[in-house]
């Protein structure tokens, strides 16, 4: 009796907690509303299954609990029932998988007009690089990383000279423009994660990974690292600001290019070389 009651309470409590508690995902700020929709579908289906199974169990416990002289039924199996349950389950699973795969195919297909933005992770800060006027990012390699060239941009590559380098600063993005985030790391695994954008992807040294999204809401959002990267992992935070086109361009004005950043040092090096 008490057992059945508590099982019912577990189901009710879970549902009530789900509905009433203030803890929920943060309002979305990107085009990935479909992901939220798939999540909702999944919640409905799984919630129904959970309630059905546990309530059924509670009923059994209540109805068939041991009574003096009672005897259990004898039924080794029921082909029909098992087949039906299999089919219903398969349909339910397909109902979650189909939208999931559909949205995933969008997630992995980057639109042609997406601008590239590079994120470079390092223990324990975020760096960014934007293509300059030529719209192209120059080559890079972890072997080229030095104190003066923290992102390892290839100085020989002309495409890299006008790249805008933001070391440990904030990233700004124009609203409603699709961006392809190119993700790189110069030391260990990191993961670029902004809860409002829904998307995330690991950054792997030696590789360039990516995801794409379109920011749909202005504001400043927190970047968190979502892949264990050592002691500072929990404190590896950053800021992404989504702005209107004008604000964005104004911000862009104030940034320096790779050439500008490396020029004074080259000068310094030349001076030093003089006796």
């Amino acid at each position, binding site marked *: 009796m008490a057992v059945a009651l508590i099982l019912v309470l577990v189901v009710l409590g879970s549902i009530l*907690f789900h509905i009433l508690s203030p803890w929920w995902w943060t309002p979305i700020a990107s085009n990935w509303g479909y992901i939220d929709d798939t999540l909702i579908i999944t919640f409905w289906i799984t919630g129904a299954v959970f309630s059905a199974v546990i309530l059924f169990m509670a009923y059994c416990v209540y109805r068939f609990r041991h009574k003096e002289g009672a005897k259990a039924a004898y039924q080794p199996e029921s082909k029909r029932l098992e087949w039906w349950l299999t089919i219903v389950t398969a349909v339910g699973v397909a109902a979650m998988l189909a939208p*999931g795969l559909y949205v995933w195919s969008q997630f992995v297909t980057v639109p042609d007009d997406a601008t590239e933005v590079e994120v470079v992770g390092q223990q324990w800060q975020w760096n960014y690089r934007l293509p300059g006027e030529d719209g192209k990012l120059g080559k890079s390699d972890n072997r080229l990383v030095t104190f003066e060239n923290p992102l390892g941009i290839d100085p020989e590559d002309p495409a890299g000279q006008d790249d805008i380098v933001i070391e440990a600063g904030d990233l700004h993005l124009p609203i409603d423009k699709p961006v392809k985030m190119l993700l790189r790391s110069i030391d260990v695994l990191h993961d670029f994660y902004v809860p409002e954008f829904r998307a995330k992807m690991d950054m792997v040294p030696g590789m360039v990974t990516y995801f794409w999204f379109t920011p749909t809401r202005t504001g400043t959002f927190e970047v968190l690292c979502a892949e264990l990267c050592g002691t500072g992992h929990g404190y590896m935070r950053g800021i992404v600001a989504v702005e209107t086109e004008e604000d964005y361009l104004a911000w862009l004005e104030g940034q320096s290019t790779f050439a500008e950043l490396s020029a004074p040092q080259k000068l310094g090096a030349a001076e030093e070389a003089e006796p």
Partner: protein
Amino acid sequence: MVDATPRAERDIPPAEVPELELYHPKSWWTTYVFSQDAKVIAIQYSGTAVAIGLVALVLSWLMRLQLGFPGTFDFITPEAYYQFITMHGMIMVIYLLTALFLGGFGNYLIPLMVGARDMVFPYVNMLSFWIYLLAVLVLAASFFAPGGPTGAGWTLYPPQAILGGTPGGQDWGIILMLVSLILFIIGFTMGGLNYAVTVIQGRTRGMTLMRMPLTVWGIFTATVMALLAFPALFVACVMMLFDRVLGTSFFMPALVEMGEQLSYGGGSPILFQHLFWFFGHPEVYIVALPAFGIVSDLISTHARKNIFGYRMMVWAIVIIGALSFIVWAHHMYVSGMHPWFGFFFATTTLIIAVPTAIKVYNWVLTLWRGDIHLTVPMLFALAFIVTFVNGGLTGLFLGNVVVDVPLSDTMFVVAHFHMVMGVAPIMVIFGAIYHWYPKITGRMLEDWMGQFHFWVTFVGSYAIFFPMHYVGLVGVPRRYPEIGEAAFMTAPVDNLNAFISVAALIVGFAQMVFLFNLVWSLRFGKEAGPNPWRATSLEWQTPTTPPPHGNWGDERPVVYRWAYDYSVPGAPEDFIPQNDPWPEKVAARPA
């Protein structure tokens, strides 16, 4: 190869050992310490696993203290926190659950349930335990090594695992961890060969595969999977050890650490992840399948009803075992591997949900029109269903590639895997201990302590891990020693975290009642008799309780039926033991 053995001789089950005096050990040492009796080895395995598991439990308290009340405990630095989660996770998964289910329950139950006198290679079986003990000691030693244990997370992902930015990465921590894992795998392989081959070769007369209790099916399938999957962890560990100690670059790309170019180059961290999860996913089922098997027997026995759809249950176990080798990359959806793999692995992962769901249906259908005795083992079995269904369903979120993207690496994942492979199997372990303790010791565990233990553990664990999903939904990443208040939160999570921590401490202390019960009942428990639950399977039919070395006295039992003849119409009692020839009369045995 032609077998020259004459036919008549072959009818004698091969595992029957003619010299019974083998089972009369000579000294105290060979009886209790260097014992080759699977039952003693089982106790040794279990004792060691529980001992190191307690360490993991204490670590979880410390972690929860930090998460619930950040900043209150000065000694829990981020370094310490990462060391705690790593050791906690690794101990729980490998050294506690795997060792307990296979080394503990496998050793105790397989020979008894299939009617064997012992494992087929008792000496190798003994070695297996001692190597396991060594592995545990090496692991424990890392707590005292300079630099402390590794803090790389239980996944040990390179490059971070072997670099200075991670606790233990450039000290002894990671080396000891890898060595301990390698030892564990070697030890396990020795034991695993025994478990598998005993099931294949050691069954007594009449014990066909389809007459075996599901417990044996679960442990057997899990063992075979473990034998095939652990080599992947072995390869990963050896290669990482080479990278760390000998400077190879299997997994290490060119990288700059703290402004300094390291001499590594060209390697692939993703390669490690593939190897790790090729082991890691089957590992989930290595823990789950024995639990599936055991819980089926608990439900059937205490509901006095045959397990519903036995054949389907067997097939499901085997199919889940096979399928679980082609889903590993669902742990790597956001790892940077080629995105097209997502389609394949999401599909295989969700397909596995179908046989798993069938198992759940059959458990609850077994309750239908049963005669349910709400004993403590049964309560734990019910709790298993609740937590397993809950955790299994959240698995559908994480397996469905695009839904995983926002959730992966958040506390949602932590909540999910604790529910499904932490709480659920542990419920089964508790149920199993309450169930078989009378056979092992001859006495019942004290019931009121059991009830108390059950309610606190079940309600408490649910209170810990159900709300934790919502911490993840809010967006809090896992492996963060503190999150504070952040703009993205729809509501601050610190109260919720504090609540979870308090629940964790309460659940933790309830386990002390359980441990006390184990010891107390040894002396003061009710006498159990040979078959207190009136169960059918062979282990309850031993001539002596607790069963001695050799299990069966002079003659091994002969099996006449499957393991689930409960409430058979027309039978004199509501259960018929497997070695009972009813309705035929017992033929007079030749003296």
